[in-house]
């Protein structure tokens, strides 16, 4: 059995529900699956760039567009979550199909940037700078 789909769904469900990432054991319990198979699914999802693990561990840092690590991009859409980056901050309302208020900070000045999605339309002033070309995003996904 390839449990990656079920595991992915369980990971996102936990993050949506609690804002924290589940461990492989918690996912195994939630979907009634073998813990080793779930751990392998975590690794497979990371290798496929669906989730991002802390180096050398099975601890989830990101399940894009959600981050369980605090970032300068906080998104409120009913509940609140952090996003890994400015692009992903808009990914949260896109994934949830909800409007959202995004509390972002300029990476250069630290200045607050008000933006979000209202009535299905994005608002806010600013430009999102990506530092690394698309072909190299996953060389070090934390530095894009």
């Amino acid at each position, binding site marked *: 059995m390839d449990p990656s789909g079920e595991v992915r769904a369980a990971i996102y469900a936990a993050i949506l529900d609690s804002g924290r990432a589940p461990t492989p054991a918690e996912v195994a319990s939630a979907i009634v699956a073998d813990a080793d198979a779930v751990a392998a699914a975590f690794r497979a999802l990371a290798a496929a760039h669906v989730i991002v693990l802390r180096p050398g561990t099975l601890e989830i840092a990101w399940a894009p567009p959600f981050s369980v690590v605090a970032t300068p991009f906080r998104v409120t859409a009913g509940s609140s979550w952090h996003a890994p980056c400015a692009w992903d901050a808009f990914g949260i309302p896109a994934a949830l199909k909800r409007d959202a208020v995004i509390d972002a900070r300029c990476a250069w000045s630290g200045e607050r940037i008000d933006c979000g999605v209202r009535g299905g339309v994005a*608002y806010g002033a600013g430009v*999102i700078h990506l530092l690394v070309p698309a072909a190299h995003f996953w060389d070090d996904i934390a530095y894009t």
Partner: protein
Amino acid sequence: MTIPQAWNLSRKWYGNRLDRDFRRPTADEARAIFASVGLTGVFWEL
């Protein structure tokens, strides 16, 4: 990218992320998504 571009890109990139049958876009699909929101040029090549 501008904020409207980020929103349009996010809807195409993440709109199905929570779906049961989600899969990541292939490289060709990703190129098409980038181009559809005006993200073209060497920077967006895969």
